[in-house]
């Protein structure tokens, strides 16, 4: 579906997994355009040019964007930094609200699996396990996830490190991520909570050993005229 360029739209961006997802949709939460590509480590080169091309193809003028939705992870460092920095720049420039949606929660919702357990890579050997509404748990190399009755694994970006059926469910899930981001993001935008333009930061999968994530500890210097 193409727009007439004047209809309001929201833009969703997710760079947490190996495939970048960008989607447009109505402020009511219905996705109407999705583009995905394998980014490798070239998120920085490809994201903004792809967004501008994609909006052009959809005939959506940037001035018609009313909100930005961005996947906040957990996921790969490089992608998340590029995605969130780009999203903040667009939202700030246009003066429109931005909301961060947990990529894991969006994937769980997108899986369509009743009791899904999401497994994502966390570095070259470890993995991360996420259940809806719960804190992610690390799954060190060599350990198998313990599943409760009726629970099913959904695995992304874990070729050779997760069962085939879990990976297949992962691919199906990934296809629907754009829709889910638009749906969840629109809901959050409509709720009109506090602006996340300043505070939004990525959910890292892991931090280096011994490092804790502090948020404060900034010293300001203002050296004007």
């Amino acid at each position, binding site marked *: 579906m193409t727009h007439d360029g004047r209809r309001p739209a929201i833009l969703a961006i997710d760079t947490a997994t190996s495939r970048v997802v960008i989607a447009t949709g109505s402020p009511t939460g219905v996705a109407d355009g999705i583009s995905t590509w394998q980014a490798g480590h*070239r998120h*920085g*080169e*490809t*994201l*903004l*040019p792809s967004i*501008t091309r994609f909006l052009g193809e959809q005939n959506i003028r*940037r001035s018609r964007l009313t909100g930005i939705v961005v996947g906040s992870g957990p996921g790969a*460092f*490089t992608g998340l*930094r*590029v995605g*969130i*920095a*780009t*999203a*903040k*720049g*667009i939202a*700030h*420039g*246009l003066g429109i609200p931005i909301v961060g949606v947990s990529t894991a929660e969006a994937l769980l919702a997108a899986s369509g699996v009743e009791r899904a357990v999401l497994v994502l890579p966390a570095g070259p050997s470890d993995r991360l396990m996420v259940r809806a509404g719960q804190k992610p748990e690390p799954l060190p190399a060599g350990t198998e996830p313990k599943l409760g009755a009726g629970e099913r694994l959904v695995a992304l970006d874990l070729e050779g490190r997760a069962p085939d059926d879990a990976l297949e469910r992962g691919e199906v899930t990934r296809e629907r991520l754009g829709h889910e981001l638009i749906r969840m993001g629109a809901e959050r935008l409509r709720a009109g909570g506090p602006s996340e*333009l*300043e*505070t*939004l*930061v*990525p959910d*890292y999968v892991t*931090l*280096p050993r*011994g*490092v804790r*994530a*502090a*948020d*404060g*500890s*900034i*010293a*300001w*210097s*203002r*050296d*004007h*005229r």
Partner: protein
Amino acid sequence: MSGPLLLSIESSCDETGIALVDGGRRILSNVVASQVALHAPTGGIVPELAARAHLRWIVPTLDEAWGAADVSWSDVDGIAVTYGPGLAGSLLVGINFAKALAWVHDVPLIGVNHLEGHVYAGWLLDPGDDAESRVAPIFPLVALVVSGGHTFLAEMTDHLTYRLLGTTVDDAAGEAFDKVGRLLGLGYPGGPAIQRAAEGAVRRDVAFPRAWMGDSYDMSFSGLKTAARRIVADARAAEGIASDDTERALSAATTAELAWGFQDAVVDVLASKTARAARAVGARSIILGGGVAANACLRERLAGEAADLHLPLIVPRPALCTDNGAMIGAAGARRFTAGDRAALDLDARPSLPLATR
């Protein structure tokens, strides 16, 4: 020079800097959110935390810089952003934020080399200066840039035209300050702490080794660091402190003397090489930049060398020597005027060398 009004963004290491600079010289606003305290517990920069802090503070930094400058977007001619060298994750934040702003506001994007930013800080005016009365650096010039991340000596024969004369072959000078500061129990960052301690030195004759690297302009500080470890160990033994005693610290007097000796060795090498280079290339001015330029001992020594050569020494005020957005706006203005434009696929170049056009 009248020139472009640029919004400029710097995020290559652990400072988020955003400035508005008019004509590459006049600072309208210059705001820096520094993460020094965030990284103090580890005694060095943790790249993952640095990138996240850039993401957290980049919008407040922009809003502050914007609010202080009293300009509107229609006044802005372009956005300059550091695209290297530096930490990949940190660079990505500034670059992608800048690209998105440039696209939304439909203004040109200019990629700036962080190292040339340090050099171009020499063109920035101080409050109260006007462009006519304040001498700009004169070509050819030599620039010494010293910080925790870089140590190099370059010749500039014209704007944006650099010849790298020498660089550190191992540690940056600022890194050596950090490591020796820790060794002496003076904390992080080491530069200001060592300078403070050295001021209290009574005896000023402790000799630390200098790595002269023959006739080259290259520098080396890792041997100095190793020597410092030995000298500190010997001093502890002389004070009767057991080598495995982590409780007892060196006396304040000895700490001050060793701090002085270490600082003297670093400054001696930096200043001597800069003076020799200035003589060799027939320089007409010298620029000192980078965070270590805040070191009073280095400033004084280099001022003496420059005076002997009858050359003006240009040292930006401390806030412009450490990483900041204004220096990127100063270099960006020259690139803008020269017609340099970056596309929206601009990516981080963590090992970008000091470039020549």
